[in-house]
């Protein structure tokens, strides 16, 4: 009886074990059918003012199932450190940019969407709202920013509820339609970007910075560039056919170099700009590794690209030389020579403004108590109005007044104002120490007009401990995003796009303004304590000695001339001595 029972138990266990291993095998087999894909790409362009743009794009794609599913926990080329953070905090899409410098629209033209980023750290996270209420979202946001700050060596943990915003208009074209999400946007305008941010970013790549295009990145030259931006963009896209979703991680480095700083000639080579050998061990995990060099718009013969045997394609109306780096047999690096530099230099100086829309943001009438924040939107086109959305997120201590918003347009070159057309104002008033002020305005800028949007503000008084260690420097109020809808009207001058898709929205990041709040005398607490203690010491000392000592009255005896203590009950009576 016992033996048969034991045999039955063994059989059951055996079947269970088989079933479990079978299940494991099944999931393993299912996930290995679709694999991660990693591609790298470098786009090179010569900007209108002679500077050179390098845009490295490292794209990792992996198959993705519904949130929380086990299949998402298999990581191959996609970095686990980032993927698990996004999975844990329910992030549908993430844009994290680390930038120094400004994209000079007036000199460099319209950027490819995403090349231009605001200075400092900028985080946009679309969090899934399914089965999460506001409190849970806040907690998950704190977790997300802390995890990212540890991952990228930045102070992203400073982005709390007091300085993040959910804009109503901005980034609506990036809103995913797959699930319900809420956008949280935070910015650290003063954050420095240095090698400690590039190091962990590079470690997310499949080949790290040891092989492939990433091995050519040189921090000494990159952080010396006129403009550099290191970006980490994650998004999920699903095909409508079979519902198969892909999670895509784009790691991008955009840098603008000036060849004239290395030599007096406009000739440049990759090594002269990046100071790294071009030929590096190839990344074996990369499915493709390509180089696109946009040929400058100059007469033939005035410039020469080496190696000279390249194929050309037309992207966005421009001639682009394409190279397949996996089959790069030439050991030399690629370089540009200008046998006749005159046309290039002439084009630099004589070229008309490549964009027909400019933005300038500044403070006017500004003091330590109040001022006016103004933004100039200039439409250079002769014909055709432009629709622009202006988004501004101000810290809580900058109290904007909605009733003071004015929008005045001036025909270019004239001083007579014309009332501008405001299509809508979206406003969130700031609450002290709780949330920032968010103002979004949708306006129309007529052709050949300069339109000024102005709003008055008052500065609040900060508490003694709320000032930063370098309090006299003030606070950078870094926002001012202008979203422009082009409606198909783009000027021809455009840096090379990674893919031919061009979006109809251009984002111009306006200047950062710096506000100096009145700084208190930080030695006052010490002074107060010292003074108060002194007063207390005097008072206490006096009172203490008074209570302990006893006042005694005496009189001088007439005959003995010695003091004689007079008892209390004898006061008033003279005794004869």
């Amino acid at each position, binding site marked *: 009886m016992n033996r048969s029972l034991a045999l039955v138990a063994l059989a059951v266990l055996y079947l269970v074990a088989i079933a479990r291993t079978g299940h494991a095998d099944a999931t393993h087999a299912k996930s290995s059918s679709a694999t991660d894909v990693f591609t790298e790409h470098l786009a090179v362009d010569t900007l209108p003012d002679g500077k050179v743009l390098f845009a490295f794009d490292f794209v990792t794609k992996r198959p993705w199932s519904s949130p929380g599913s086990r299949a998402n926990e298999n990581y191959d080329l996609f970095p686990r450190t980032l993927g698990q953070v996004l999975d844990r905090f329910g992030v549908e899409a993430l844009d994290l940019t680390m930038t120094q410098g400004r994209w000079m629209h007036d000199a460099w033209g319209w950027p490819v969407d995403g090349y231009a980023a605001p200075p400092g750290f900028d985080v946009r996270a679309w969090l899934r709202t399914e089965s999460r209420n506001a409190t849970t979202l806040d907690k998950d946001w704190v977790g997300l920013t802390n995890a990212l700050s*540890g991952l990228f060596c930045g102070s992203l943990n400073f982005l709390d509820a007091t300085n993040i915003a959910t804009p109503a208009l901005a980034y609506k074209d990036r809103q995913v339609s797959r699930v319900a999400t809420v956008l949280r946007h935070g910015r650290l305008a003063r954050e420095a970007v240095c*090698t400690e941010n590039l190091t962990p970013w590079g470690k997310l790549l499949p080949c790290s910075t040891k092989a492939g295009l990433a091995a050519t990145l040189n*921090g000494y030259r990159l952080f010396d560039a006129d403009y550099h931006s290191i970006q980490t963009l994650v998004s999920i896209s699903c095909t409508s056919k079979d519902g198969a979703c892909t999670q895509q991680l784009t790691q991008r480095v955009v840098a603008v170099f000036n060849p004239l700083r290395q030599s007096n000639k406009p000739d440049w080579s990759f090594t002269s700009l990046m100071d790294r050998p071009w030929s590096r061990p190839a990344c074996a995990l990369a499915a493709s590794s390509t180089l696109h060099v946009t040929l400058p718009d100059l007469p033939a013969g005035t410039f020469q690209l080496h190696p000279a045997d390249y194929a050309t394609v037309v992207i966005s109306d421009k001639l682009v030389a394409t190279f397949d780096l996996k089959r790069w047999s030439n050991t030399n690096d690629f370089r540009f020579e200008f046998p006749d530099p005159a046309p290039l230099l002439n084009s630099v100086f004589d070229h008309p403004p490549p964009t027909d829309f400019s933005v300038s943001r500044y403070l006017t009438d500004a003091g330590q108590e109040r001022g006016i924040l103004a933004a100039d939107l200039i439409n250079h086109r002769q014909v055709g109005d432009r629709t622009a959305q202006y988004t501004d997120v101000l810290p809580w201590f900058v109290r904007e007044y909605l009733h003071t918003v004015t929008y005045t347009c001036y025909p270019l070159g004239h001083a007579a104002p014309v009332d501008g057309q405001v299509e809508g104002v979206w406003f969130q008033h700031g609450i002290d120490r709780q949330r920032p002020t968010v103002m979004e305005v949708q306006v129309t800028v007529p052709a050949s007009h300069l339109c000024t949007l102005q709003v008055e503000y008052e500065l609040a008084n900060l508490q003694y401990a709320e000032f930063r260690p370098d309090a006299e420097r003030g606070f950078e109020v870094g926002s001012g995003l202008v979203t422009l809808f082009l409606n198909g009207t783009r000027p021809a001058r455009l840096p090379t796009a990674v893919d031919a898709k061009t979006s109809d929205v251009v984002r111009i990041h306006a200047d950062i303004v710096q506000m100096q709040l009145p700084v208190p005398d930080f030695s006052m607490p010490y002074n107060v304590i010292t003074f108060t203690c002194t007063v207390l010491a005097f008072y206490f000392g006096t009172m203490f000695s008074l209570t302990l000592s006893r006042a005694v009255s005496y009189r001088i005896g007439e005959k003995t001339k010695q003091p004689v203590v007079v008892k209390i009950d004898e006061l008033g009576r003279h005794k004869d001595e």
Partner: protein
Amino acid sequence: MLVSVDNHLLGHTRTNAARPSRPPPSHRRREHGPTTTMTRTIATILAVLAVTLVLALPSFASPPAANATAADDATNNWAVLVCTSRYWFNYRHVANTLSMYRTVKRLGIPDDQILLLLADDMACNPRNSRPASVINNAEDRLDLYGDTVEVDYRGYEVTVENFMRLLTDRMPEHTPRSKRLLTDEKSRILVFMTGHGGDEFLKFQDKEELGAQDLADAFAQMWEKRRYREVLFMVDTCQANTLYSRISAPNVVAVGSSAKDESSYSHHMDMNLGVSVIDRFTYANLEALESVHLASASASSPGGLNRTSSLADLFATYDPVKLASTPGVRSDLSKRPLESIPILDFFGASLTGAKVPRDEDRVVLEARLEVSPVPTVEKVARPTEEEVGESKAPRPVGPVKVGPASSWRAYLHAAALAGLVGIMSFVTLV
């Protein structure tokens, strides 16, 4: 004992029905006689004393690291490198810290076990004529920043509170692992601090100060929580020796660059940068440590240190004349004499004294084929239906569109105001 005393005093009688359930008294006690009270009292006192001693005994017992041989079996080395100064003219403090960073990395401590706190960014500072690099020697031009550097706390995050929380591991939820000091009772920690300091304080970022007592309390907490085996505390500021004067936790060796009422001086200036690039005390340490290499047992420069040198050898290289200050060493709290503490115990990742198991000692585990069960996916606690239902229609987040002023509201307000004025005038006039 006490129960029986009570019984004796109460004069126990069996017939007392209201007596609560006590163990029946022993009649034998009543036969002992009049001396019983005194002996009982003495016995009570002795018993109380004995119980007190037994309960207090664990606090007298020191952790197993009390003896010198057990101090050797540390298994992991950590480094906490702190620069507390901000602004370009304090370049040398960042250079000090990065010099130590480079040294400990070179000698084997991985980035995961180094916590680097820099109060300002010098490498990518707009004033830096050598972008992305920090030097500590005007002639050598060796870049301390390098290609792989991970700064865990940067800029405004370097505060006294964060430093104390880091040491005692009282961090808020969600603090990433790279920002935590994850040490245990077998860790050796090198704590290096540099900046501006004074008599028993160290200034953080020109805003706040860390006191010597705070530091001593932090180390005492760490000892109570078993967060280290040994600590080497090195400080390069003015009047640095006063900063470690109050430490009382065991197994701490402390080194300071200058005594009370003495300043610590910078070493030299780089004419291109326009600032001093290193302090004398740190420079002296680096001069000694640069000759230490893991690969060779001999010194790279004659008479220099090598990988087997001890802390005493390192401290002996300090020359008060060159430093223009009097460095101090505090070794009274350390169980091991300085001559027997190798420098790689703190500056590198060596495990001197860790016993290598012999073949006879090794336990061979039987190879067992285990079928690990597939873990079930645990449902993350989601808010219940009631909670979600309450917030199903949340109030709008973000800016709300400002609509045109409704005219009927304006008229209503005007009418109400007119009515109020009318009533008031009526009341006044009548």
